[in-house]
């Protein structure tokens, strides 16, 4: 493995310290939940409520941190968006859309037209972005 790739994998891995902290929090939270059940059975409702809250918060917090760590790893990948190339025949108007290939450029003459055998032209190269929904504020 090259130096660069080993460094890249080092930057994507999750710290063992963070994993240990998440694990300890989760164990303590589960213990609090078990104690809450015990306190409830002993009719000590106030203690049971507090233990339940602590246990619930602990489970939520550790799950959230674990999820965030996973998302950070996903975000670390550089995604190449799909690029579309549109080829057009200027004579008969035949249009074809395909994935971008290395060497494509706008106004490049490419393969002959399937219909009239005239040379076709690349007329568009672009990527489509799906908007995640417009924010609700009225500005």
């Amino acid at each position, binding site marked *: 493995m090259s130096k660069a790739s080993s460094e890249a994998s080092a930057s994507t891995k999750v710290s063992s310290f963070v994993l240990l902290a998440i694990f300890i929090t989760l164990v303590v939270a589960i213990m609090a939940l078990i104690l809450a059940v015990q306190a409830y059975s002993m009719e000590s409702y106030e*203690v049971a409520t507090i233990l339940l809250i602590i246990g619930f918060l602990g489970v939520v917090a550790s799950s959230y941190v674990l999820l965030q760590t996973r998302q950070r790893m996903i975000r670390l990948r550089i995604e190449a968006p799909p690029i579309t190339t549109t080829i057009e025949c200027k004579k008969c108007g035949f249009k074809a859309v395909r994935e971008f290939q290395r060497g494509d450029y*706008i106004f490049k003459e490419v393969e002959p037209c399937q219909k009239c055998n005239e040379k076709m032209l690349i007329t568009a190269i672009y990527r489509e*972005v799906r908007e995640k929904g417009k924010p609700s504020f009225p500005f």
Partner: protein
Amino acid sequence: MNIAAVLALLQSQFFQFPGGDIFSQILTFAIYIFIFLSLFYGQRIQLHIMLREVEGSLYKLKYIRDEGRRIAIEAIKEVGKPQTDPTPRVDRFLEYFTISPQSLDPAGVVWKLEHILDVRDTRFKDEVRLLAPSADETQANNLENTLEAAMALNYIYKVIRHYFLLGKKTLSLYVIMQIQMILPLVMREAEAYASALKAFAYGQPIGDGVGALVAAKLMHGYPLRKVPKDCVVATVPIEGRTAYVIKAEGPGGNVGKPGDAIKTIIEENEGKISNIIMIDAALKLEGEDVGEVAEGVGAAIGGPGVDQFKIEETILKYRIPINAVIIKEDIGDAVSPMRKEVFEAADKAIERIKQLILERTKEGDKIIICGVGNTIGIGQ
């Protein structure tokens, strides 16, 4: 259980240190510890939280920087077919720097800056030729752009790392705070360069090239000639006027020197140009739509300012009015593969140009239309 009962319970549980059961004692002790820590170590805790945040971003920047380096090396190996491993040379290239000229006496600083930029450009081109001997001109230009993007990523990473380590060493809240506050903007820029890398390596048109695309659409099918430097011009009849349409020579990654090209055309026509229209991509403000077309006056051209200076000097000499049409996009869109909205905005910009020509010039007039931007992936 009502709220008053809960409050009474919390009070009895939390603020009674001696007495009570073991659980409430532990909890009360923990709260006292928390208050003590917040009082005396609050700032230090805040500092460490900030450092963690910067560290997280630094990991991401390191990953992006390494990816950039890897993509550049792969592209050089694939296209340039070098005899030896290009990695050490690429690493040396990533550390290149340019010293801007001294501006204590500002007179003539533009020409000094132009000279430095020319030297830099020649040096980069020579370096790319050595790295990739089999690459043709278009591929060499694309490789140069790829290496420049990798260089920018390397620089961003090093600056953030510098402030992170400095903050860690001095434990100065203000050093860390400064970097933490600008971090979202820095990350945005780094992500933009990361998406630019593959576009440059594959020769895909980028958002910044929309000005060149407009010019290419106008000049396509008309005879072309080269003008200094690295630009092409076509004489195109539009609405009964003669338009000199200028753009950087594509399809390789190239911005040319539109300042020199416009000056050449004006001087060829002895200053008898009735209007200049410049088209360029411009950064949008948050809330504006991508691909919005706007119109104004002035030389629409970015970069270090040399070309803008030359255009302004020439049009002042001959008193030529200058108009600008801009297509709005954000920094990420400007350096990443061209978005559909931006591509479609080119046709809207052409309509605006035609309207502008009809309103601002007379039949038989000579005009210059200059599409500014990186022409990577755009022919003519």
